């Protein structure tokens, strides 16, 4: 159970994402997960062992380390990456639920009945809202963790020396962090990639809302045009309804895979 498992779970998500979503997923797995696993974990590997305090008092070192590092950066990033990638699975689950509903409908009414969805994978109706909500959730998670990191560590800086006077330290003790410059570089890198992901998600939301508004506007404009034509030419109401085609409708693509396939 490692990051490859998560990557396997999310590999099916790209089918239902926009171009922004695919770029976002690549950024997350290349620049965040890979850098995290290959580099960041090693930089923080010896963080407690090489955290040295200028005292021989037993326990002072433990207590000072705990005071200045309540949660390690690597654990925060691991949790952030898990929480930020999971909402995409909601989209996959929604598509699987649609497929299941379609299958049950077909079993009930026979093979030649009217389908419930033209294309279960197309972002229309409930699936559009699920997708937008997952984007909002991803932005929320990334923002929360970036803020948490800033709040807990009072900025993204790593001082080489910190002063500690927690009990049982006998007085104000000098403590030295291991590899502060390298940690600072990786912290800034992870924060910048998080901000890039937040920006991409915001662009994606704006794009989706803009596209939806444009489609609504175009269909309203078309129906108004048809109505004026109907009034002037005297054709039946049924004709105008037939012409009120929702843009983007097409022949159904290959059906989405079942939930089992997706998570296996």
């Amino acid at each position: 159970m490692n990051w490859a498992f998560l990557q396997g779970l999310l590999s099916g998500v790209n089918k239902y994402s926009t171009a922004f979503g695919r770029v976002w997923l690549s950024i997350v797995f290349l620049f965040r997960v890979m850098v995290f696993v290959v580099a960041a974990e090693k930089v923080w590997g010896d963080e407690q062992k090489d955290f040295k305090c200028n005292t021989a008092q037993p326990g002072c070192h433990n207590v000072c380390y705990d005071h200045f590092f309540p949660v390690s950066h690597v654990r925060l990033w691991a949790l952030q990456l898990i929480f930020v990638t999971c909402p995409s699975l909601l989209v996959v689950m929604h598509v699987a639920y649609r497929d299941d509903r379609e299958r049950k409908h077909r079993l009930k009414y026979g093979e030649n009945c009217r389908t419930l969805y033209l294309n279960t994978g197309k972002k229309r109706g409930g699936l559009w809202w699920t997708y937008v909500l997952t984007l909002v959730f991803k932005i929320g998670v990334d923002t929360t963790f970036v803020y948490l990191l800033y709040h807990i560590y009072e900025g993204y800086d790593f001082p080489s020396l910190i002063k500690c006077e927690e009990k049982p330290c006998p007085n104000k003790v000098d403590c030295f962090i291991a590899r502060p410059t390298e940690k600072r570089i990786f912290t800034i890198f992870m924060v910048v990639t998080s901000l890039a992901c937040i920006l991409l998600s915001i662009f994606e939301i704006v794009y989706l809302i803009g596209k939806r508004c444009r489609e609504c506007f175009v269909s309203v404009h078309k129906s108004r045009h048809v109505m004026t034509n109907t009034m002037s030419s005297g054709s039946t109401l049924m004709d105008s309804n037939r012409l009120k085609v929702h843009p983007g409708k097409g022949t159904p693509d290959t059906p989405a895979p079942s939930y089992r396939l997706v998570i296996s």
Partner: protein
Amino acid sequence: MSWPVLYAQLVGANRHSTSLGKVWLSVLFIFRVMVLVVAAESVWGDEQSDFTCNTLQPGCENVCYDQFFPVSHIRLWCLQLVFVSTPTLLVAMYVSYRNHSDKKRLLQSSGRAGLLSNKGQEEDLETLKKRRLPVAGALWWTYACSLVFRLLFEGGFMYALYVVYDGFQMPRLVQCDQWPCPNLVDCFISRPTEKTIFTVFMATASSICMVLNMAELSYLVAKAVTR
């Protein structure tokens, strides 16, 4: 034997679960097993080596560590995850037994009739293997029992963790006067805040799983009653 093997077993049994069961499996593996492997295990990695006591007495640290950490959190969580996953295998075993007896019945009936061709028989066997059994009758009882066992195991392990460690918080300092420590000795735990955060996280994930299981059980009971 490792987590991917367990995952493969559970995914197979998942086909016959309700939607809530599928959500439960995702929550279990993403928010509990993955967090355990990727984050929690490294937090507890140095728990004994960085457990420091204010004494030079040899053996005192070992004895104090053993008194305050009879079972490590990580081991308790691994055991909890294994026990909680096991009832699902009950369902898998029942489905396998049903498939086996149906297959035997099919082969017997085709042998007696002597009408079905080889190909027809193979197709029937394939559909038998690939079908999804409805959750009714004996499968309903097996599934409901597995949910009850899951709830019991989750509750049991959470309670055990709470009792062994006197709550979900890890103190910074513990005082120990076990032999051979010469007097009441101060011992300092490594990374107590981080450990508290992860203990609370795992307890929350466990509670969410319990809520999901209870919802699933209520759904099954309601479905049976309406039927």
